[in-house]
């Protein structure tokens, strides 16, 4: 589903963000990318979204080599990858429902499809009563639910999340993680970059640990830190 072949990313001339990273993620997997700030987690997420190009190596998403995707095809690529960010990235002038609907409008779906699908998905993330609220009227956890609903509404095969609980308190975080877990259970490949130690330890999923741009550990049913 996602494959990194010897990927190196250098910012500027000398800031090495990733160094010869090899990583394979299969369809339907749930993977945590863990590591301290600056270890390269976000770089991996941004490379998957083709927000930038690797300095060396090749990245495959859904069987497509990203370097061969031309600029004008990027929107199509991104419609197959739902994304969730630490700062939610909601459109401030749109209500919760409109934010979710926007992700369907960009793919040119019918108004009626959008009209039935949006309430369903907002209900699924537990926000059926707040559809017409604007982002600044919602709590952080609620905003993150909206952004997950938006990422998932078109049912993309892959969902990537960059520090989805980074701005949230522990109780709210549990809810968000459960939501991601449910999305994974219906077959979506989920990649979560996080430094939320507790969460990773509780979930017992595959953990890929990064340190200064290198994969230092890759363990199925792992924990945040090495277990002695």
């Amino acid at each position, binding site marked *: 589903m996602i494959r990194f072949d010897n990927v190196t990313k250098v910012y500027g001339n000398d800031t090495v963000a990733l160094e010869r990273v090899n990583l394979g993620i299969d369809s339907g997997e749930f993977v945590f990318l863990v590591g301290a700030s600056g270890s390269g987690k976000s770089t991996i997420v941004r490379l998957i979204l083709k*927000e930038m190009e690797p300095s060396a190596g090749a990245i495959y998403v859904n069987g497509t080599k990203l370097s061969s995707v031309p600029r004008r095809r990027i*929107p199509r690529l991104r419609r197959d990858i739902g994304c969730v960010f630490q700062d939610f990235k909601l459109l401030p002038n749109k209500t919760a429902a409109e934010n979710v609907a926007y992700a369907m409008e960009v793919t*040119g779906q019918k108004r009626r499809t959008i009209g039935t699908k949006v309430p369903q998905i907002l209900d699924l993330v537990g926000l059926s009563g707040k559809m017409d609220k604007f982002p600044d009227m919602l709590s952080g956890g609620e905003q993150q639910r909206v952004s997950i609903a*938006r990422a998932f509404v078109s049912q993309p095969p892959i969902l990537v999340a960059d520090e989805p609980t980074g701005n949230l308190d522990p109780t709210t975080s549990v809810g968000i993680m459960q939501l991601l877990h449910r999305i994974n259970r219906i077959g979506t490949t989920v990649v979560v970059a996080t430094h939320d130690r507790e969460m990773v330890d509780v979930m017992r999923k595959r953990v890929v640990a990064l340190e200064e741009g290198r994969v230092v550990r890759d363990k199925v049913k792992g924990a945040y830190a090495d277990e002695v």
Partner: protein
Amino acid sequence: MRFNLGFFLGEALKNLRLNVLMSITAVTTTFICILVFGLGLLVSAHIQSIIGSVREDVSVEAFMPDATSQEVDDLANKVETWPEVASVTTVSEEQAFAEFKDQFEDQPDLYQDLDQGVFPASVQIQLEDPDSANAVAGRLKQQGFTESNLSYPQQTIDRLNAVTSYVIWGLYGATLLFLIASVLLISNAIRLSIFARRKEIEVMKLVGASDGFVRTPFVFEGLLQAFVGASLAAFAVIWINLLFVDLSHDALPYVPISTSAVNPFSTLILLIAVGVGIGVFGSFLSVTRFLKKI
């Protein structure tokens, strides 16, 4: 992908409502630019129309100072036989003086010290076709008339052109500069509004919006703003035209200025079209440039 006009228009209207100040800036900019452009068109249209109506003039006058009435009649008889000529009348010194007194009835100080002989006798020639005026003048010159003893339309046109050609070229130059300036100003106004919303555009791109999908509401927005600004300016130009023609009739009764020099309908259409064109072009350009950067 379906082109969802309702959605794009809705987005554009919502953006206009949410960015009222930016919209006012863009509308005002368009208004001023189209107003100046329209006034330029107005002035040049009137100058062209005045030159046109002089050109339509079918009279040639030949002045004969110190000529006997016999000489005047002889010339009149000869000229009457020319094929281009429709009619000929003679004006004696006395008639010329009387006419002058008539014209300036209310300003007697202009003529009370003048002798009758100041105004020469003349032959007034009416032509069939204004285009033959130069030929007739040429033939009169062969009869011994000099340029200063003749009055025919080309002289007026030459004199008008000597003054107005500079004015018109200056006007064309200014109009061109203004059009360039307005494209820059309007695209700058749009760039500002895009910059204010760059985060939004980035998010749109992240959830898979194509460049066209992001761009279209902005272009509609530019179109609507330009339409409002240009329409206001176009109506102002039409109104100023009427006002100006009225005023000039009072102030310059001898200058053939007429409202018909400017067709209000086509002027409206032209000005609005130019404004909307600039708005669409400007917004398209500035969004595209921004989209290339992210």
